[in-house]
């Protein structure tokens, strides 16, 4: 019995070390600002009913498996939140929150703005 969706969502990820988010001293550990954003958005969208949390979990595990199939297990480039972000991208499209390609367009615009703002570019 969980009284809060956030509690349920985080607890359901604690089943194996691979699928569980990094933690330190009982707290979630975020090394970069975008990790927090990706974490919060993923939980919020499921809480709003755009997809089942179990669907996110299964897709996350499949994404991690995809990484493992294409990299050495001790590859230093391993990055939990890259897998999390890839999962979130799949879910926003499969659930119909965004159209395929919409995110890429928005991102290209953001990156172009950044390039224009950088005089050395």
């Amino acid at each position: 019995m969980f009284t809060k969706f956030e509690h349920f969502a985080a607890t359901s990820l604690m089943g194996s070390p691979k699928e569980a988010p990094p933690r330190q001293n009982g707290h979630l550990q975020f090394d970069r600002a975008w990790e927090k954003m990706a974490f919060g958005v993923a939980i919020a969208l499921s809480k709003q009913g755009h997809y089942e949390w179990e669907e996110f979990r299964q897709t996350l595990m499949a994404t991690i498996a995809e990484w493992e199939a294409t990299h050495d297990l001790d590859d230093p480039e391993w990055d939990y939140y890259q897998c999390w972000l890839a999962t979130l991208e799949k879910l926003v499209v499969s659930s119909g929150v965004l159209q395929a390609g919409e995110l890429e367009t928005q991102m290209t615009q953001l990156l172009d703005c950044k390039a224009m703002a950088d005089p050395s570019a």
Partner: protein
Amino acid sequence: MPSNYPGFRYGADRETFSAAKVKALESLLIEKGVITGDTVDTVLGYFETEMGPFNGARLVARAWVDPAFKELLVTDCNAACEAMDFPEGMSGAEGEHMRIAENTPEVHNVIVCTLCSCYPWPTLGLPPYWFKDPTFRARVVREPRVVLSEFGVELDESVTIKVWDSSAQIRWWVLPMRPPGTEGMSETELAALLTPEAMMGVATVSV
């Protein structure tokens, strides 16, 4: 076989790429009215301020300064939680009981659990990786003194070690002993000394 997903490719651009992608996602979702600028803060706020080891630390610190509260905490942990100004739902729903095992000069307590849902979340926050490790659990039960020593907890041979296995019904955690040298400290100062590890029984509290 290389992956087709750009976030999996190597290179210095990966960070810029990921940060831009998340930023793009957030702005699109806000534009479409799916989320607001506060949504993510609300989700994270739950983990940062509502449920976590800070709750357990406050309960223990109060028990250290208030013998009547300590009695309540040891005999009825959920009632002790209710006596604090914790967020709603903190003391657990039906069938979810937290119990605290009190460390004394004679008895040292350690918790283990077999299911992820058995960790006393509201007071200790998220469990560390090793806590779920079957090897850890098996070894704590078999040779607790050796495992504790690996954690840096050296106990006198005369101290009895009790291992508490949490279940879906009862979630155990540990009331550590108040360390010497803390006589003049406030509850807030005392709470700052506590770690999740100390409240799991794999560390002691020191100043």
